[in-house]
């Protein structure tokens, strides 16, 4: 058991499956169509290019994960390298992006199910899946790891069948003609668009406090999963664009299911749809593990409430962090807004990648004698390449993502300075706001009752407003006149 109370139960297989399972999400099943319309058949270049960009940063994750094997991943690296605001920003974006990624996975799953059963309620199915995987995660990290391994093995078998049947399928001349109708720009845009399919493998670094023999297992698992992903995606892209032209793929909602229909018939469509569901669930599982461990680490350092630190006596997992993080995911999933969530996930992960590479370079200078069981090859070229390529990806994603990122950054600064202000002042501030709400509710009730506000409302609303007003004013007075400064 780790000194934090977390149990080291994940071996190389489990850890590698966490990496692969975290990355193979529903995205590859639905995004390949638009990517091929951007890059043409040169998608077989764009996908390995994404993988190489990902590998640059995964090398940094491998070095830092082996050298600093405690819970929290990117956040812990940034804390050791920089501390303070940079560390908090890293943890914040990591937590938010994993929360968004869990939402994306659950809503993505529900949308895939809706292809088969169109009448289902998408947000409701997403919420049910989050609850199921929250329970699995509370049962213990080993159970989460076993569930992940089983799902990834089944998924890889489905993808292997897809590739093998697609490989033997002959269409036209049977040979792949490389073409990029929009040239290099099209390949670059496709690379930025499809990069999301590689995100999630860094979950290995986040669960490092629960990995057996971390100094050896972490770098091996990270590099193995990054290379395996390049092979899997390149093969999928190759058989897909060889079987069906990019013009047709670009119009398909689920291009892999369409190609499977061409090569294997209706059985293929069902098989690939089931594969898409499993992919979505495995990335949901990984992101729930990751988000709760980051919340745990932020709580350990006083940025999040101490409740997140509680470890379950029997299962040895931070169960409160798992439950509270899942509640945020449920709230997001209930909206069913997938596009916003997708953009937010991209932005958060790419910022995280940049900060991890910066942390590696800073630590090489700050702590040259730190024991490093694994060292990034070709230093400093590799982390610099990781930073440059990550930032370039942001430029191709678009302005709306940058605007969203700026908003999340402002929210992070607000949260950071609030946590620095101290609980006493925050409590008094909330007491003041509560008083304000109470007075406003009383005024509203008065205006409605006297008819000064021309609103046609049910009579019960007046009594509800009076009740809310009384409770808010009382709560405000109690918070403002708090007798103690030692809260939490």
């Amino acid at each position, binding site marked *: 058991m780790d000194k934090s109370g977390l149990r080291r139960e994940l071996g190389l297989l489990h850890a590698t499956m966490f990496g692969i399972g975290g990355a193979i999400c529903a995205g590859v099943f639905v995004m390949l169509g638009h990517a091929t319309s951007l890059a043409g058949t040169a998608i077989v270049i764009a996908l390995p290019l994404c993988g190489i960009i990902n590998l640059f940063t995964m090398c940094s994750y491998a070095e830092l994960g082996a050298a600093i094997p405690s819970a929290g991943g990117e956040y812990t690296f940034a804390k050791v390298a920089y501390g303070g605001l940079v560390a908090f920003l890293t943890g914040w974006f990591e937590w938010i992006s994993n929360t968004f990624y869990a939402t994306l996975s659950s809503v993505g799953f529900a949308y895939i199910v809706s292809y088969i059963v169109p009448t289902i309620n998408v947000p409701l199915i997403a919420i049910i899946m989050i609850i199921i995987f929250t329970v699995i995660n509370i049962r213990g990290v080993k159970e989460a790891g076993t569930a992940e391994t089983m799902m990834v093995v089944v998924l890889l078998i489905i993808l292997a069948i897809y590739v093998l049947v697609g490989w033997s399928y002959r269409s036209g001349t049977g040979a792949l003609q490389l073409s990029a109708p929009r040239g290099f720009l099209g390949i670059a845009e496709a690379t930025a668009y499809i990069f999301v399919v590689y995100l999630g493998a860094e979950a290995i670094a986040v669960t490092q406090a629960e990995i057996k023999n971390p100094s050896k297992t972490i770098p091996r698992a990270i590099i193995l999963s990054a290379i395996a992903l390049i092979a899997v995606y390149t093969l999928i892209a190759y058989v897909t664009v060889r079987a069906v032209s990019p013009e047709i793929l670009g119009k398909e909602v689920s291009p892999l299911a369409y190609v499977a229909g061409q090569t294997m018939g209706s059985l293929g469509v069902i098989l690939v749809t089931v594969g898409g569901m499993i992919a979505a669930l495995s990335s949901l599982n990984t992101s729930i593990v990751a988000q709760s461990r980051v919340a745990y680490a932020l709580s350990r350092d006083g940025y999040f409430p101490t409740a997140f630190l509680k470890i379950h006596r029997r299962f040895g997992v931070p169960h409160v962090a798992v439950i509270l993080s899942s509640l945020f995911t449920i709230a997001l999933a209930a909206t069913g807004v997938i596009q916003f969530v997708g953009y937010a996930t991209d932005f958060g992960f790419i910022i995280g990648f940049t900060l991890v590479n910066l942390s590696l370079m800073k630590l090489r200078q700050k702590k040259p004698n730190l024991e490093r069981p694994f060292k990034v090859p070709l230093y400093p070229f590799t982390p610099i390449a990781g930073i440059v390529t990550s930032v370039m990806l942001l430029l191709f994603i678009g302005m709306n993502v940058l605007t969203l990122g700026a908003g999340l950054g402002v929210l992070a600064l607000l949260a950071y300075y609030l946590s620095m202000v101290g609980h006493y002042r925050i409590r008094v501030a909330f*007491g003041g*706001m509560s008083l304000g*709400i109470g007075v406003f509710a009383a005024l509203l009730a008065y205006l409605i009752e006297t008819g000064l506000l021309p*609103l046609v409302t049910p009579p019960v609303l007046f009594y509800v407003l009076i009740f809310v007003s009384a*409770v*808010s004013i009382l*709560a405000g007075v109690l918070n403002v006149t708090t007798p*103690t400064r030692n809260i939490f």
Partner: protein
Amino acid sequence: MEVRKIVSKVVGATQSGIGVLAIILAYILYYNLFDIQRMLNASAQNAPLYMLLLLIFDLLSVISGLFLIYE
């Protein structure tokens, strides 16, 4: 001091409860479940605004309530 503690816990739990109910109401109103928009004479056009206001209210209520519960 003991009386204040009990009052704080009761008021805190009530306020947090109101906050949680406000979240549920926000979603019911936004998605117009049980035809609630007609019952409350709320226009569908303003549903996102109601959702935003209710979410701000519930966030403040839950946090303020939790401060009192864990006093």
